[in-house]
Structures are given as structure tokens and as C-alpha cells.
């Protein structure tokens, strides 16, 4: 299984998760994901995901002028985003626990 394939299903959740404690702009979010260990994540995927989450009303955005570079559009979780993070996070944790059990039982992990 390629990590990128797995990532497709959970990138939304990963983006919501890195925005939980701190707002961020696109490239910053990409960096946080990579630092967290999702090194395979693509720039376009993060950008596209942010646009989609924003369009679905899960994120708020605001622009912060920057002295040394372009304006940065910061994304922040709103109430709907937090609710989505909570419910999808729970689904993921159950799924992951199931997978872990499954692998343990089969002696693969």
C-alpha cells in the first residue's frame, strides 16, 4: 500500500487536526504536515483541500499583510470545522484501532 493512497482518505482530517491549535496559511500547513511525518503529502493536495474545506464552510479565512513577502491567507477552524474534526477523528480512531487489532492478531505488526 502506498502512503499516498492512504493519505487521500484522511488528508481532510490531517489538515483539520493541524489547524486545531493554531491558525495557519497554506504553505505553513503543508510544513506542519510534513514535520508531523506526512512527508508524502503534495503541495497541490494541501492547497486543494484547504480550498474545499473553506468552500464547505468548515474553515474561516483572513488575510494578514506581510512585510517581507506576499499577503498570507490564514485559515482557522470554525465551529463546524471543530465538529467535523471531532466526529471524523472518532471514526478514524476506531478504524485505526480495528486495523491495529487486526494486524496484531495476524502477527503482522
Amino acid at each position, binding site marked *: 500500500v502506498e502512503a499516498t493512497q492512504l493519505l*487521500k482518505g484522511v*488528508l*481532510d482530517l490531517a489538515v483539520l487536526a493541524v489547524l486545531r491549535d493554531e491558525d495557519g*496559511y*497554506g*504553505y*505553513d500547513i503543508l510544513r506542519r504536515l510534513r514535520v508531523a511525518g506526512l512527508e508524502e503529502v*503534495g*503541495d*497541490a*493536495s*494541501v*492547497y*486543494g*483541500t484547504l*480550498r*474545499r*474545506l473553506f*468552500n*464547505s*464552510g*468548515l474553515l474561516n479565512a483572513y488575510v494578514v499583510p506581510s512585510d517581507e*513577502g*506576499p*499577503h*498570507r*491567507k490564514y485559515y482557522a477552524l470554525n465551529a*463546524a470545522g471543530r*465538529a*467535523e474534526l471531532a466526529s471524523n477523528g*472518532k471514526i478514524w480512531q*476506531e478504524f485505526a*484501532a480495528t486495523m491495529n*487489532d487486526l494486524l*496484531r*492478531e495476524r502477527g503482522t505488526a
Partner: protein
Amino acid sequence: VNATDTYTDEITAYVEAVRTAVAGLPEEVREGLLEDLPEHLAEVVADDIGTLAERLGPPAVYAAELLASAGYVGGGFPDPPPQPRRPGLVRRVRSSLGARLRELDRSSGPLFGKPRASAFLIQLRPAWWVLRGYLVSMVLASVLGDGSQIGLLPRVGGSDLIALGLLATCVIASIWFGRRQFVMGRPVRLIHKGATAVLILIGLVGFSDLDQTNRYDPYMNAGYSDPYGNVQDVFVYDREGKLVEGARLLDQNGQPIRLGVPNCYDDQGNYVAGAQESVYPYCPRNAPFRMTGEAPDAQVVPTPSR
């Protein structure tokens, strides 16, 4: 400033190439998707060395990834539900109940030395198959039987041999059925579940029946059901309907049958002497069909007892 300009040209070119690649989208959607891209790419460029194409790949590939992740092509990311469409009550209860059960399943796992309690239950499946076979055989026996008691074996017509054969057949069939793990369609699955529920119900009823019988039978025999418990005196009448006095009751072994209490009191409650053990009636004046004031009939007195 020059460097920034170069970056800007590079970014503009890259964005234009991406824009071309997503030309299929409606303009509004396209511009919405790309509106922040120049600023975003500026961050990418500022962060590291290398051209955009080197770092991000060809614009067409970038555009494809963008489309997929932004949800504009099938098979990419499914859109989250537009607005919190409240799930129905049944579904909500079901899902929260399910989550709680799964949690219980996991948390009680260590009790059975398994990651999940259900893993242990699954091991018990063959035991259920055997029990199911037994229950089916009992149901068959009671349907096929003539209504006589079948006991704990599925006897048909009181035959132990048929009982054992039927039992073995049903148990083996049940195990075979269990091991095959048939792929069942929805209607068949419902029938299977319903039949299983009925079988379990029958099993429980049979079990509690048996339990009751075993608990209460000894008491029943010990005399709670004795219909002669409150007999105080016995009155024997002859063929003509006359009261027989001094009668003796014997059982098949010639043993006198003792009933009641050999005491007699008159209407005023005074003791009347003369009553003898096992000679009935003890108290002829109390005969149920005697007319008031009528004296005991002296003609039918049989041989007095010694």
C-alpha cells in the same frame, strides 16, 4: 527586488499553465480555486531553492492533484455533506449504541485475554452450532412426536434409537451449516436471524420448564397436593344410600387407611366417647346428609369392631 520579479514571472507562468490545465472548469469555480495560488506559490519559492517545476512537478500534474483534492473530479475526495444534515433518530441511536458496544467490546477484551471480547465469543461459535443442532432436533421431535413426553432426548414415539439418530443428524448438519459460512442475501439473512431468535426462545422456555419441574416436584409428592389432607372423618354409604357405621377402610395390602382424627364432639362441643381408631365414621351424628334430629340408623350397624 530583481529576484522577486524573477520569482513573480516564474509564479505567473506556473499559475497560467495550471489555469490552462483546469480550463474545463466553469470560470467562477476555476478562479475561486486559483485565487490564492500565486501567494501560495510565492511561499513555496521563498522557502527553498529550485524552480517551481522542479519542486512541484509539471503544472499539468499539479493541476490534476489540485482538481482531485479540491473535489472537482470523481474518485478524488468526496465532499463533506453540504450542511449538517441531521441523521434520523433511529440512525443516531443505532450509531451511538454501536460505538458504545464497540467500546465495551474492546474494554472487556483483556478479561478474556483478547484484544476484543468478541474475539473470544467467535471461538465459542462451534459450541453454539452443537447447541443449535440439539435444539433443532428437540423441535423436530416435538413436531413429529405423538405428544408424549420426550424428556431430554428428541424421542419420537418413545424410541431412544431414533432420538440418538435424530440428535446426531441435527448436530452434524448444524456444524456443517456453520462451517460453510454461506453468503446469504438480505431476505435469507433475515429469515436465518428470525429462526435463530425463535430457536433461542424455545430453548429458554424448555430450560425454564425443566428447571421448574426439578425444583418443585419433590414438594408436590411430599403432600402439598394431598387431596385428603383436610379430611376429618369418613362416611360410608351402602347401595341404598344408608350410612354405614363401624366401617373399616383397607388398602391393597390389608393395611388400615388412617384418615381424619378419631374424636367426636356433639353440637354443644362436648366430647362424645366411643370413637375408635380407623373405624368410620368417628362421629356418625355429623354425617353430611343426615336430617337434623334424625337418629343414627341402628339397623345397618355392621359387626362392631373389637
